[in-house]
């Protein structure tokens, strides 16, 4: 079982307590009515689906119930780091070579 660090509970907790909630850092337009159909499609349906590092929202559903963001490697399924919702995308990942 994976252990995922919840930034609110400040410890690693078992995977079963968590739910994935899709890709992170997708900003909703402030003026939705003015969004063109193409832009709306990009915002609503199109996801990056990378092979490698992905930024995701996760929810500690059966714990503190808070949403947070996580950086995960889709190849190894390893969690590189987690951080609180609302915080900016980390500039440097732990273990990054540069």
């Amino acid at each position, binding site marked *: 079982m994976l252990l995922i660090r919840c930034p*609110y509970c400040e*410890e690693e*907790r*078992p995977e*079963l307590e968590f739910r994935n909630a899709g890709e992170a850092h997708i900003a909703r337009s402030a003026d939705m009515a003015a969004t063109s159909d193409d832009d709306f499609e990009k915002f609503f349906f199109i996801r990056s689906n990378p092979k490698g590092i992905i930024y995701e929202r996760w929810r500690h559903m059966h*714990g*503190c*119930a*808070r949403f947070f963001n996580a950086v995960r490697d889709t190849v190894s399924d390893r969690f590189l780091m987690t951080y609180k919702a609302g915080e900016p995308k980390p500039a440097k990942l732990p273990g990054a070579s540069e």
Partner: protein
Amino acid sequence: MAKAAAKKSAAAAPSVERRPALIGQELSATGVALAVLPPAERISLRAPDASVAALSKALGVTLPRKPKTSAARAGRTALWLGPDEWLVIDEVGRDPLADCAEVTVLHSAVGISHRNVAISVTGPAAAATINSGCPQDLSLDAFPVGAASRTILGKVEIVLLRTASDAFRVECWRSFSDYVFLFLSEAARDAAA
């Protein structure tokens, strides 16, 4: 006006007979005993940081701010569930909802006394029994006495509180209580074997 009168009389004497789920059920196996605990008053409390001090004062118990902790005073226990969420359990019949009603600072208190059923799991094999369906580390280092957490047991969500080194209080939803008690009963037999 009729509404106000009805409200008053309801507070004075409950018109509906309370029929707690599973009441009196018990099970003892080698090294572990299960018992359904008597009904208690409970609230689900949500509040921002600024309101915590006033609410703590009104409730008579300091709301814990550290994850996975609880605080108890005079029969009333406050369990940290999230950064702005607590479960307050009163086992001596003083309704915490009434205490919160007098607080004017921003908060949300919802009475959930009848929603939950509490089961006590005690004995040297208590942690092993709960661990049969709960993936958390329940060693005394990771989950000391007084530690509390919302987590899962088998297929349902529970709130777990360690009341002593070999005793736990399992809070589950009333409609899940049959499942939880049966699950723990089977687990207790396994832990005993």
